[in-house]
């Protein structure tokens, strides 16, 4: 093969590689528009239909029907993936649903050494029983303290909202969204819902604070919230990072291959340098 032919063939090969990879990237782009849920807390009346629908869909015991459960702040638990909390404000009560936020770049998934916690291509963050070894590093890492661990079980599971990944995968809607009688919950792609949220804010600036919680928090989340009052008054942490949490350990992880390759070379050189002549 002469030089020209060689260059041509290399050129051809590399263009085809580029073409192939860009085609794949396009395809991925289309599929990877994450689904999301918009929670409009100004519409929620605290009926807890979402809680009951969630428990029924995922086979958990029916939540306590007594209204008194809302007298205190609740967290999602190992038997309840989603809870509604009441916050008293100057005007009236505001109800806020709490569950996994389904971050775009979840801390829990990047913490998981077995990929038991997984951000699916559709958008839901799911937990996989056959992978998890129960180290609970996801619980340490999650900025929203969402994953819950079954401390009472010899075969413990991590419990958290799956955004009804099965139903969503089949083109359905999460159970909680379907159950909401007030249309406080909307389901769609994330960009659609951000547009919709912005539309509501601009159409009715007196009702909403101009902030979509989850648009930037933790680098963007799959659950988006609208509120009448500043979010820290209704149970949201104000000190949450706006960059994604995996970003926090990225620098360290980038340093690993550098140390792994440079250290041995450096140590070997040092060891040779300290060798005595007689050896």
């Amino acid at each position, binding site marked *: 093969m002469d030089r020209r032919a060689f260059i041509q063939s290399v050129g051809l090969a590399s263009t085809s590689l580029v073409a192939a990879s860009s085609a794949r990237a396009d395809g991925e782009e289309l599929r990877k528009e994450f689904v999301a849920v918009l929670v409009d807390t100004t519409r929620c009346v605290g009926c807890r239909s979402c809680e009951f629908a969630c428990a029924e869909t995922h086979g958990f015991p029916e939540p306590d029907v007594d209204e008194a459960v809302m007298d205190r702040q609740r967290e999602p638990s190992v038997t309840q993936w989603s809870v509604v909390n009441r916050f008293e404000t100057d005007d009236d009560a505001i109800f806020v649903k709490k569950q996994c936020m389904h971050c775009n770049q979840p801390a829990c998934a990047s*913490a998981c*050494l077995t990929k038991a916690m997984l951000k699916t291509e559709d958008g839901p963050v799911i937990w996989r029983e056959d992978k998890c*070894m129960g180290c609970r590093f996801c619980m340490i890492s999650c*900025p929203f303290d969402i994953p*819950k*661990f079954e401390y*009472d079980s010899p075969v*413990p599971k991590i419990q958290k909202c799956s955004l009804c990944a099965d139903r969503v995968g089949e083109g359905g809607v999460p159970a909680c969204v379907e159950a909401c009688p007030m249309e406080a919950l909307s389901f769609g792609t994330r960009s659609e819902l951000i547009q919709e949220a912005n539309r509501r804010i601009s159409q009715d600036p007196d009702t909403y604070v101009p902030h979509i919680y989850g648009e930037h928090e933790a680098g963007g989340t799959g659950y988006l919230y609208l509120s009448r009052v500043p979010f820290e008054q209704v149970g949201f942490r104000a000190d949450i990072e706006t960059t994604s949490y*995996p970003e926090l350990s990225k620098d360290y992880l980038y340093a690993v291959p550098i140390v792994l390759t440079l250290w041995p070379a450096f*140590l070997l050189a040092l060891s040779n340098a300290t060798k005595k002549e007689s050896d």
Partner: protein
Amino acid sequence: MASTSTSLALLAHETRRFGRFILGELKPKGKLVTPFNVVAAVILLVAAVLLVIRFTQGLASTTNLSQDFPWGIWIGFDVITGVAFAGGAYVITFMVYVLRLEKYHPIVRITVLNGFLAYVFYAGALLFDLGRPWNVINPIIGNSFGVSSVMFLVAWHFMLYMITEFIEFSPAVAEWLGWRKVRKFLGSLTLGAVIFGITLSTLHQSGLGALFLMAKDKIHPLWYSEFLPILFFVSSIFAGLSMVILEGSISQRVFRSQISPLHRVRHDDIVRGLARVCAGTMYVYFFLKVLVFVHGQHWTYILTPMGSWYLVEMIIFVLVPVRLYTQAVRFGNMGVIRVASVLTLIGIVLNRLNVSVIAYKWYAAERYIPSWMEIEITLAIIVAELIVLRWIVNRMPILREPAEEPTDGVGGHPERHEIRHKEPEQWVTST
């Protein structure tokens, strides 16, 4: 044909002889009923019962872990502090095999053995804490590599480092068994193992700090820093060495019969050298902590209760021992060095527990306090490690010199043959 049967007979004979040797070695040496043994047996028995309960009823039956505090002392103390304490092995092997500071050669084996056992027992204790330990093979066999996880790195490094330390230690096993050729081969692996081991240690000592990087909003600002990996790495150097100093002063008494008079003479000099390295790295650590403190503009926190707690850690358990080390090195006071090492080690326990348990969710209404069962099992792990350590030290050439002179002249401690014919002061220069 005849030669085959002869060699078979020889093999059978050798196997029987080896079997008898192992059986003989397995028997306890010395008195069986001693105060230590009795207490140890009780602790181990109780722990065995508790572990049955733990594995049949779940973690809640034995631990005070909660949804707010997923990690308690089994991680914060056993694994994270235990691994920092085991850091002496990589530092000493660095000094002896890379820098070739032969002065420290006599403590290589005991330090590497201590490090190896610490990893086996303290990192092994992780299995008690894992909710689903049967899946621990998942990140190993590769059906599910979470390579973006710091925990993945730490897990792999633990495993590889245990193998590395075993290779570093293996010549002692070969000497114990009298396998000269194997001994020669294993000895040739040492430098490679040491270099690999130092690299792994750099990464997983810092990796233990990196585990907490994503918990930025949960750890008190006085303890959280993006430099946690570097702080963990630097502190593992003097944590490991302080452990070597303390452990050395104990084995000088406990294993007195094992230690040659020469080693005893040299030991003070070795300890003074280690104290000097401790002091140096502790000054660096203190300086780093001050930089992080100033850089993070944390002045406002100092007047809070957590601020006082931070000052306790930094002043009583970093600044005081570093001064003690410095003074003791200058005046050659061995007692003060021991006190400094104890203070330093307490400081490391505090620091690791602060990051992982105490300053973690310092705002939480309900605190985590370990249950007596968590403490009992931790004690049992320490006791089990000490028993195995004692068994090995009493049998293998760890502190003492090899029982028989290797005829081919190969030894992990080449200087050891020479020193028999030399006076102590000449030994420093001999290689």
